């Protein structure tokens, strides 16, 4: 969270009661690294990092890859992109951030918060070469708080000047006034081999998804009848593995055997049969193999491309199509050959030992795709389209034989600049990512940022959505993976269909961006890796030799992997290699894997040497006095980032005491703080380690629905729907996470005094008894504000919508409908608007189409308007909170009226504690009737004790005791996961203050004044008011609107719909035998319709006339449901004649 000010407090010399002179205990104080981490990284840093990487690095790469625009007509013409910048010109001062408007203004005015995209181009004009700088080719939506955003690095005061909340995490876009988040997408890692086995079918397959800038393709090495084949979409037939390896230049069978099997006899036996296959097909040489492949390539020649010979097809297939992420540009096919051989080897290994398969669900095999990458894909697509449109345009001009003036290409470049802007805007606002290159159509990539409360917005920013289909009946992707420890929150996932597929990041995680491969490759060779180009195939899989793989591709081999890995790590700890490059050994595969790719989740850990933490008191002291920042720990090699794979190669101690306790074990790392296994939302729960785990998951879902404070600028916001709590309180029992994510500054809930007892019988099924006086004092009171937008349109015939003043009756008072509006036709701030009243008196011209031909204004008839006012509809009145009038980008007036309701809790409103214990208000009781204790305190809420035994939310009980101790002690207690205030200490405080150690009090009945027969568990618990309120749901209908087509009552509360008597209810009525009730419900009260049925032909006629029989002889009137009549007519339209045969009832 970029706001330094908010964090300054955390890093003050005296922080939360800890002074500089206090003893520093590494075991307890090392958690201070966490606020330091969050200060640098923030909770949504992954979004910002990826966007920053995109605008600063990736954009330049895209420009470089598509730098030339050539003409088919004029061979001398060229246009070359030299550079690209977002939001600043080549001439502007460093640090300039050019954006359209401050973000909050964009929100209010329904604009897109964007910055211009400037390019420098070099092109030919006639014979001259011209360089043009700072050409705007479109506008790029700017992620809030990214380094292109004006809010980046601003102090709290300056933020306030922009009407921004300093606690707002940023990381989202504002497109057409709505805040849009690009959710983190989880995918299987690209360019890596995944081996899977289907034991029932006896199939083993190794697959790799190759992804390059141009295409995406998948290559398989599969078993079929115990033989191994290579499969690829653009090759019609499966190619025997030996043939493909021969085509890739490994000509001798001996070498193939060495590369695939090494000297392992078991592997050799498995693989042997494949040589026979190739021999049977009489493929011996590379030439023959290439022809074999070339013959089977599905040719998809583009128009204009030359026809290739079979040999060329074969070469093309091996060089570029198969395993497409490795491109061969010369004759050296060895890298690719070894890659295919490695795939085959992994298949052979899995055949030999079925345990040698990969786990798709393992977090180390996953990559997260972030906003930056997704926008980058989109931008490249749009940029290519832009260039090809531009090229078509200049070709058109250059084709003309005689041009009057010299042709300047730039004149036609701006025509298309809207395409990029519009394309980006449309994709982000609709969430439909369609990329022509990959033929990718993905819907639902973006979501509207949920602004229900601060925590719901924050929870959305850390959310990860999985690309798996929800319908598949496999449990694997949904299950909790051990490898997600510390990386993904273990509690925070929704229930129901998305359970386990939508995840959340843990508190202390970082998602990598792409790092350069080449320098790492060089470094590997310097560190003693033998290149695959010089290494002999026979030694490749010799015992004790390890392959070195860089991002999945075999680089070379190494004899002493441990030393290699150790020196590599040493260089990384020295800061010589990027901290996010991971290296680990896989002994099963005899491989050292190095990963530099983006999208890996990693987290910082303290380095342990000889079972001693490298971080000591001195370092922590420096951190506390502000001398050091988190990055200094990284720089000094005290802390390092590990990704999931490297974590698997380490022994991590949870606590410092584990280091000395287990002297026999060689620890490599130490956790900074165990509670970081939970994410931001789960971090709100006090004592979560005492709860049954599903309760924590329930709370994670409910925490996002709690009404509270949204942001410091909440009263300046005009959102579609916002809920505010009127008197939010920070919880009595907080957690360290709460402080770190500033939940205590923007809380969503109140500390209620709870008595756990039965009262009145209105508390069954988790219902709560509320104290009326508490509600009077403001408990659970909230405000609901709703935005209403009105556009005043301009029409082509120069007429436009207008606002009209209020109409008055003979006494000069406004008519009922216009009571809320002023003379300007807009609702007046503070005015009460009740059902049926108008808050914007808009009038639309009756004639908007035809252009009036008369040019003389005097002759023009008076324009007539028709009223189209914005009407207020609702059971309860609202008050006009704000009225805003502005202009959109196409110069139309935009009016936003914010209507406010203040709501007291009422029967049926939903409340929940922080332990997944939700309940509705069952009864509101006068305080006089409620029980009270010795001090005369009566509870705010009475909760039924039956809520406890089956839910096992012990954390809630401890929260009560800690809260009670805190109240008596005047302190805020901690319920941090795996720590927090100890129950013993809390009990001690209670006893000191004259209370029972277990938190039970003696209560007296408010009705009889008698002492209750049992001690009552009594104390404060933090209660959240959830957004589900009776007022928004209550609904009844006697009669009302009907659907046009079926003439049945409409559906849903918003349409004043009826209540459906469904199939199951129908079954009950039938079983009961109340057939007349059925008739009434299903027809008479619904869509009864009188039809004329002809008893001769059985079809329906009208007006006592049968059109089929041309007679009115046997036509009878009867009543049937309109839906049945509709069905008959539809059947007739399909050439099916439903004939009614009538019989006598009596």
């Amino acid at each position, binding site marked *: 969270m970029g706001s330094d000010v908010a964090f300054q407090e955390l890093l003050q010399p005296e922080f939360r009661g800890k002074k500089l002179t206090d003893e520093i205990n590494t075991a307890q104080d090392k958690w201070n690294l966490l606020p330091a981490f969050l200060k640098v990284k923030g909770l949504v840093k992954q979004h910002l990092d990826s966007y920053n990487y995109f605008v600063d690095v990736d954009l330049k790469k895209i420009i470089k890859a598509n730098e030339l625009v050539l003409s088919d007509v004029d061979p001398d013409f060229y246009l070359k992109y030299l550079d690209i910048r977002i939001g600043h010109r080549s001439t502007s001062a460093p640090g300039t951030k050019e954006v359209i408007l401050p973000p909050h203004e964009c929100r209010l005015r329904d604009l897109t918060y964007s910055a211009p995209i400037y390019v420098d181009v070099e092109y030919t004009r006639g014979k001259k070469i011209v360089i043009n700088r700072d050409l705007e080719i479109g506008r790029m939506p700017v992620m809030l708080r990214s380094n292109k955003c004006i809010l980046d690095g601003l102090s709290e005061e300056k933020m306030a000047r922009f009407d921004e909340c300093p606690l707002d995490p940023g990381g989202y876009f504002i497109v057409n006034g709505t805040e849009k988040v690009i959710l983190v997408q989880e995918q299987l890692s690209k360019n890596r081999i995944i081996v899977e086995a289907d034991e029932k079918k006896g199939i083993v397959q190794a697959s790799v998804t190759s992804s390059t800038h141009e295409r995406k393709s998948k290559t398989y090495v599969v078993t079929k009848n115990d033989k191994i084949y290579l499969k690829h979409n653009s090759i019609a037939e499966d190619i025997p593995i030996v043939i493909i390896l021969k085509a890739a230049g490994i000509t001798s069978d001996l070498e193939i055997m060495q590369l695939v099997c090494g000297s392992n006899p078991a592997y050799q036996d498995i693989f042997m049969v494949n040589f026979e296959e190739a021999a049977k097909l009489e493929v011996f040489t590379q030439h023959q193999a290439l022809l074999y492949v070339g013959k089977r390539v599905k040719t998809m020649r583009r*128009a204009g491309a030359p026809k290739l010979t079979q040999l060329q097809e074969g070469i093309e297939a091996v060089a*570029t199509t198969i395993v497409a992420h490795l491109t061969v540009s*010369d004759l050296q096919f060895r890298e690719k050959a070894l890659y295919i051989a490695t795939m085959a080897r992994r298949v052979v290994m899995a055949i030999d030992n079925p345990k040698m398969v990969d786990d798709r669900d393992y977090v180390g095999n996953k990559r997260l795709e972030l906003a930056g990458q997704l926008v980058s894909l989109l931008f490249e697509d749009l940029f290519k*389209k832009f260039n090809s449109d531009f090229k078509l345009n200049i070709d058109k001009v250059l084709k003309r034989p005689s041009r009057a003036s010299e042709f300047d290409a730039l004149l036609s470049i701006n025509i298309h600049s809207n395409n990029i802007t519009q394309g980006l805007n449309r994709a982000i606002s609709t969430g439909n990512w369609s990329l022509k290159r990959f033929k990718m159509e993905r819907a639902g990539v973006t979501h509207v940022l949920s602004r229900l409360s601060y925590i719901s917005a924050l929870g959305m920013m850390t959310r990860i959505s999985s690309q798996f289909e929800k319908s598949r009946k496999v449990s694997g992707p949904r299950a909790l993976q051990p490898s997600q420890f510390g990386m993904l929150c273990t509690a925070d996932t929704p229930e129901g269909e998305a359970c386990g597929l939508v995840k959340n990041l843990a508190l202390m995680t970082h998602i990598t961006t792409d790092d350069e491969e080449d320098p790492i490759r060089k470094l590997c060779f310097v560190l*003693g890796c033998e290149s695959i180009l*010089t290494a002999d195939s026979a030694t490749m899989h010799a015992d004790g030799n390890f392959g070195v793989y860089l991002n999945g591709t075999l680089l070379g081999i190494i004899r002493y992997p441990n030393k290699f890995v150790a020196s590599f790590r040493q260089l990384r700890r020295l800061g010589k*290699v*990027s901290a996010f490059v991971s290296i680990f050994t896989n002994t099963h595969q005899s491989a050292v894997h190095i990963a530099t790719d983006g999208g890996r989740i990693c987290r910082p850990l303290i380095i342990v040497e000889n079972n001693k933490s490298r971080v000591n008191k001195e370092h922590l002291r420096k951190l506390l006095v502000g001398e050091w920042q988190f990055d200094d720990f990284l720089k000094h090699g005290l802390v390092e980032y590990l990704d999931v794979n490297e974590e698997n190669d380490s022994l991590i101690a949870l606590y410092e005491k584990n280091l000395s306790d287990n002297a026999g074990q060689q620890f490599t790392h130490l956790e900074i703080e165990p509670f970081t296994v939970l994410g931001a939302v789960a971090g709100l729960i006090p004592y979560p380690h005492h709860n049954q785990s599903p309760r924590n998951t329930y709370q994670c879902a409910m925490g996002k629905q709690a009404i509270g404070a949204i942001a410091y600028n909440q009263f300046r916001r005009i959102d579609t729907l916002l809920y505010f709590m009127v008197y939010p309180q920070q919880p009595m029992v907080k957690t360290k996470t709460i402080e770190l994510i500033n939940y205590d500054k923007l809380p969503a809930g109140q500390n209620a005094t709870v008595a756990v007892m039965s009262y009145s019988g209105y508390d069954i099924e988790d219902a709560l008894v509320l104290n009326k006086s508490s509600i009077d004092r403001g408990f659970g009171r909230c405000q609901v504000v709703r935005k209403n937008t009105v556009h005043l349109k301009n029409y082509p015939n120069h007429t436009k919508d207008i606002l009209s003043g209020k109409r008055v009756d003979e006494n000069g008072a406004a008519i009922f409908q216009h009571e809320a509006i002023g003379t300007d036709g807009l609702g007046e701030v503070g005015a009460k608007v009740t059902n049926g009243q108008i808050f914007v008196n808009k009038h639309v011209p009756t004639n908007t189409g035809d252009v009036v031909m008369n040019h003389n204004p005097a002759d023009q008839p008076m324009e007539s308007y028709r009223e189209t006012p914005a009407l207020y509809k609702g059971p309860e009145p609202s008050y006009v909170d704000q009225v805003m009038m502005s202009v959109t980008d196409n110069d139309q007036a935009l009016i936003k009226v914010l209507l406010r309701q203040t709501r007291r809790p009422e029967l049926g409103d939903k409340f929940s504690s922080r332990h997944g214990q939700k309940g509705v208000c069952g009864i509101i009781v006068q305080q006089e009737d409620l029980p009270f204790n010795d001090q005369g305190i009566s509870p705010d809420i009475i909760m039924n004790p039956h809520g406890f035994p089956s839910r096992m939310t012990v954390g809630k009980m401890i929260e009560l005791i800690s809260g009670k101790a805190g109240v008596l002690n005047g302190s805020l207690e901690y319920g941090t996961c795996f720590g927090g205030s100890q129950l013993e200490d809390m009990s001690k405080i209670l006893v000191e203050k004259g209370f029972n150690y277990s938190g039970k009090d003696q209560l007296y009945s408010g009705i009889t004044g008698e002492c209750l027969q049992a001690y009552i568990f009594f104390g404060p618990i933090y209660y959240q008011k959830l957004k589900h309120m009776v007022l928004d749901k209550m609904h009844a209908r006697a009669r009302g609107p009907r659907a046009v087509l079926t003439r049945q009552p409409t559906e849903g509360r918003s349409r004043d719909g009826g209540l459906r008597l469904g199939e199951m209810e129908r079954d009950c009525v039938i079983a009961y035998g109340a057939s007349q009730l059925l008739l009434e419900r299903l027809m008479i009260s619904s869509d009864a319709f009188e039809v004329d049925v002809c008893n001769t032909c059985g079809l329906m006629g009208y007006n006592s006339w049968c059109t089929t029989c041309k007679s009115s002889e046997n036509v009878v009137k009867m009543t049937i449901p309109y839906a049945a009549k509709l069905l008959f007519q539809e059947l007739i339209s399909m050439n099916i004649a439903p004939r009614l045969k009538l019989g006598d009832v009596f």
Partner: protein
Amino acid sequence: MAGKGLFVDEEEHDAVVVKEEPVDVVVMDVDTPEATETGSIDAEEADSDTRADDDSDDPVINTVPVLLNQVSEGSYHILQFPGRPKSRDLPEDIKPAVKPKSNYLQIKQPLDTSKFFNVNKQDSWGEEIGEQTVEGVLDPAKGMYVCRVVDGKVVMTPIASSVQLRPKFEYIDAVDKASAAAQRKEHESAAKPQTMQILSSVAKAPTQNLNADGYNGALGEALRYIKQFDEEEWVGLSWKSEGIDEALPKPEEEVITTTATKSDYIDMITSDLANL
């Protein structure tokens, strides 16, 4: 350096050719492990230099001066013959040829017909097979040196490139080609009417396509390279078998010393890595 001489095992046989003007080529057999020292020597040197301080259980027992040879004319290359046992000697009569632009080396050597040679197969092909062709890409070998211990001193000579020579089986392709040509002749007359159809497909107008990788109608990178390779002429070389001492230049007298400290060295090897 970890694997000193590791990669010379019995399956592999290494030779060093000095490629100069096609007039004289020096070849020697080097079976000494030092001959294939790969990776960069200066890395090891600097490593051992500095590690002596902090590695007490691995003390320095001997210090060897290192000499660096400058290659004034010609260049040195490692030739690897994967699949050929070390025990089998290289034949005398070897015809090397090179395509310098494409970095491609080809060696034709007489086929050993005494062992594992199926004379019947040769007869059925009706062709005399006397030569075996092995060829491979000359991969630039940056930072590779040939090291020899001369008078207790390590002499290093830089290597320009290394090549792995794999069999080509040209004779099989030749047989294929011949039979394919014969087949085509047979089909020639029958195929004539079909040429009419080809004409009709030419009329397709090239339409613009976004998916085009920037250029329309051009060959892929690999195919372009192969075209260039096919167009390039072989440059013949001559083969000499000499001992290693004659082949390598006379060692220079100056012993290399390093002034780099450990941190300098680390900076050197990581200079192109982006810092944090």
